[in-house]
C-alpha cells in the first residue's frame, strides 16, 4: 500500500473504513524523507523498531574500516521528530549521551521529550511504566545481553514488546533487539563540507535500509538520505533512491 493511499485512508472518517484498514489509521506520522522506508508510510502503533547503532563507548569487536553501522542516534532523532511535532510525547530510557541540541535541530519538541538517563538495572520496568502514556519509548538494551535468546533479558524484551503492543506505543531500540518488527540500519555514511584543515561538517549522505518480519516489516527497502542535510535536519537524496528488492514504494 503506497503512502499516498495510506494518507487518503487516514483522512476518511473512521466509521467507513474496514477494520484491516482502520489499523492503518493508527500510524504515527514521520518526516517525509523517511516514509519510503516504513510500510504504510509511518510507524505502526504497537510495534518494536530496532535502530542500528554502534555507540563508541563500546568499541565494536571487529573495527574494520567501513564495518559497522553509523548514524544510529541521528536516525533515531529523525524518527522521533515526526510524531513529536504531531503532538506525541517521547521518552528516552538509558541513553545518557543523546544530544539535546541535536534533538532540537532535528525537530523534536523539547517540551514533550523526557529522558531517564540512568534507569539502572530496571530499564525494562521503567520503559514498561512509560509505555502507558508515551507514544514513543526509546530504550537501549545493555550490550552483552543482546545475543541471548533465553534468560531474564529475553523475557524482559518479550514482556516489554507485549506491553507496548497493548498500549499502542512504539518501542524504539537503540541496539540489537531480536524479534523486532522492523529493523532500520544506517550505513555507508560520507560527510561533506570538510576539507584538509578547513571547512566544517555540513551534510552527510547516508544509506538507510529497512527490513523486518510480518506485516509490520514488509519487504526490505533501501533509501539514500541526507542526514543531516545542509540547512535541514533531513532531506531525501535528489536522484532517485537506490532500491533493492521489489518495486519502489
Amino acid at each position, binding site marked *: 500500500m503506497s503512502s499516498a493511499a495510506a494518507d487518503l485512508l487516514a483522512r476518511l472518517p473512521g466509521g467507513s473504513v474496514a477494520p484491516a484498514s482502520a489499523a492503518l489509521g493508527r500510524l504515527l506520522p514521520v518526516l517525509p524523507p523517511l516514509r519510503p522506508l516504513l510500510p504504510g508510510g509511518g510507524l505502526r502503533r504497537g510495534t518494536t523498531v530496532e535502530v542500528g547503532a554502534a*555507540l*563508541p*563507548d563500546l*568499541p565494536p569487536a571487529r*573495527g574494520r*574500516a*567501513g*564495518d*559497522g553501522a*553509523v548514524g*544510529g*542516534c*541521528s536516525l*533515531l*532523532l529523525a524518527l522521533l521528530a515526526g510524531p513529536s511535532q504531531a*503532538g*506525541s*510525547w517521547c*521518552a528516552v530510557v538509558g541513553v*545518557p*549521551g*543523546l*544530544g*539535546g*541540541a*541535536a534533538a532540537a*535541530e532535528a525537530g523534536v519538541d*523539547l*517540551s514533550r*521529550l*523526557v*529522558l*531517564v*538517563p*540512568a*534507569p539502572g538495572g*530496571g530499564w525494562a*520496568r*521503567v520503559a514498561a*511504566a*512509560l*509505555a*502507558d*502514556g*508515551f*507514544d514513543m519509548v526509546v530504550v537501549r538494551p545493555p550490550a552483552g545481553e543482546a545475543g541471548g535468546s533465553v534468560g531474564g533479558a529475553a523475557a524482559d524484551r518479550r514482556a516489554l514488546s507485549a506491553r507496548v503492543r*497493548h498500549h*499502542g506505543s512504539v518501542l524504539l531500540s537503540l541496539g540489537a533487539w531480536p524479534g523486532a518488527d522492523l529493523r532500520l540500519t544506517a550505513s555507508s*555514511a560520507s*560527510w561533506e563540507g*570538510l*576539507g*584538509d*584543515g*578547513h571547512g*566544517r*561538517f*555540513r551534510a*552527510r549522505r547516508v544509506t538507510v535500509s529497512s527490513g523486518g518480519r510480518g506485516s509490520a516489516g514488509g519487504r526490505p527497502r533501501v533509501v539514500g538520505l541526507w542526514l*543531516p542535510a545542509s540547512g535541514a535536519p533531513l532531506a531525501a537524496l535528489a536522484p532517485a533512491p537506490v532500491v533493492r528488492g521489489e518495486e519502489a514504494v
Partner: protein
Amino acid sequence: MSTPAPEARARGRTIAVWSPDWPAVTAVAAAGLPPGAPAAVLAGGAVLACTASARAAGVRRGLRRREAQHRCPGLAVLPRDLAEEARAFEPVVVAVEASAPGVEVIRPGLCTVSARGPARYFGGDAGAAAHLAAQASAAGPGDECRAGVAEGSFAAALAARAGRVVPVGGTPEFLAPYPVDVLDRPDLADLLRRLGLPTLGAFAALPAADVVARFGSDGGHAHRLAAGLDPRPPAARRVPPELVVSVVLDPPADRVERAAFAARPLADELHARLSAVGLGCTRLGIEIETERGECHSRLWRYEGVLSAAAIADRVRWQLDGWLGGTAGELASRPDTAGAAGPSPGRRGALRGAVPSDAPAPGRPTGGVALLRLVPDEVVPAGRDQLSLWSASGAEDEAAGAELAERAGRALARVQGLLGQPAVVTAVLAGGRGPGDRVRYVPWGDARGPTAVEAPWPGHIPAPSPAYVPPAPLPAEVVDASGAPVAVSPRYAVSAPPARLAVAGGPARPVQAWAGPWPADERWWDAATAQACVRFQVATSDGAGWLLALADGRWWVEAVYD
C-alpha cells in the same frame, strides 16, 4: 516490599487527639443547649454527626432528617457551622501545644503531634497520650477527648477512635482488619471491594509497584497508608522558595471576612504555582501577622492534596480560631498607631492587649497585615486512579492536555521507582561546547528560562552532534609519522592528523579534518577556566568526531553519530 528497620518504624510515631462528635458538640454549645441534650448536625440532608445521647437513641450517620427525628423524638437538629468548630477547637490545640510542640491540625476535632518528645517526657506513649487527652478534654467543650498512638497520622487517627496505643511496629496488624472505606476514597474503595479486597490488610498485601501501575500515584499513596508506612514518597522534596506566597493587606484587615476574602486569591495563586510544577501540597503552614507584629502560625495536614478552596478554608479556620469568638471584630486600634505594616515593638497601652511575652498566642490587638502560605510538604501531584478498562491508545488528534496528563501519570510512577531527579527534560541553554547547549532539569521542577538568543562566539555550528558521551572519551590522534598531533600556542597544528584511536580501540584513518577552533573560556577565573582547542574529524568509516585538545591530551567530546 521490604519491611522498614525498627528504628525507621519507630520514627513515625504520632499521637492523635480526637474529640468525638466535634461538629455536634460545638453546635450544641453554640446553641446554648445543655451538654447532654440529644442533637444532630445535618449536612446535605443527612446526619453528619450527633451527640452521644442521640446515638444511644439510635441516630446514626447518614440517616435522613425524618428518620433521625423518628428514632429520637427530642432531637435538636442544628445546622453545621464550620467557623464555630474551628473557633472552638483553637483552645484545644493551644492546650495540646503547651505540652507538645509541632501540632498539626487535620480538621477541627482532630490534631496530631509527633510522639517522640512527649513520650520521653511523660514516660512512654501511653502516659503521653493520656496526658494530652486530659489536657484537651479540659480545654474544649466536649466531655472527653481520646488519644491514640501509632505510626503515621492516618493510623494514629484510627487508633484515637479506638482509644488504643498501638505497640511499636504493630501498625500493619492494627490496620489490617479495617475496611477499605476508612481510606476516604469512595471510588477506590468500591473498586477494591469488587476485586475481593475488602480490608486494608488485603489491599496492603498487594505489591506496591503493581498498585501504582494500576491505580496511579494516588493509589500508591493509599497503599502506603494501608500498609502502615510513611505515606511521603521516599525522595524528600525541598520546597523551593518561590513557592511561598504572601500578601500584605494594606490597610490591615480588621474583620475576619476581609482577611479571609484576601486569602482566597492567595490560595489560588499558591495552588496554581504548585500545579505548574506538578506538585501538590499535603502539609501547609499558614502564618498570620498583625500590624502589631503578633504572629500566629499553624501547620495544617491534609490527607491527599490540598485544593485552592481547601487552603482558603483553612486560613479562615485559623483566623476564626485565633480570634476566639469575638464575632469577627479585631480589637480596635488606638489612635497613636500609624504604621500600616507589621511593627516589631508593642509600645503604648492598648485596650485588651495581651502581654507581649505570653507564650500562647492570645487574641490579636490589631488588624491582620500579612498572610503567608508556606507549603511545608509537597508530593508530585498524581491523578486519580485509572479505570481498569480505560481505553489506552489515544488517537492522533487527541487533545494535547489529555496526552500530557497521561504522560504525567507515567512519569509520576517512574519517579516513584527511581526518585525525582532521575527523570529529566531538556531545556535549551547557551554555551559553546556540545554539552553546554542543553540543560537537563528534573521533571517537576520549573523549566526555567530558555535563553538562546545571546551570541556565543566560537560555539559549535549546526548541525549539532547527536551523541555526546557523559564524560569525554580519551583518544589518540597521530599524524602520518606516528607522532601525536599538537597545537602550538599560536594555534598552528604541528602536522595534519592521519589516524584516530578512540578509547583504546583500533586506529581509524582520518579522511578530512578542520580546525583548530580555540575556546578559551573564563580565563579570568583560575578555578573555572577552560581552555581547549576543537577539531572536527571525519574518518574513513564515515563517522564524524568532535575532538578537543586540552592540556596536551586529546578527547572525543561528541560523535556525529
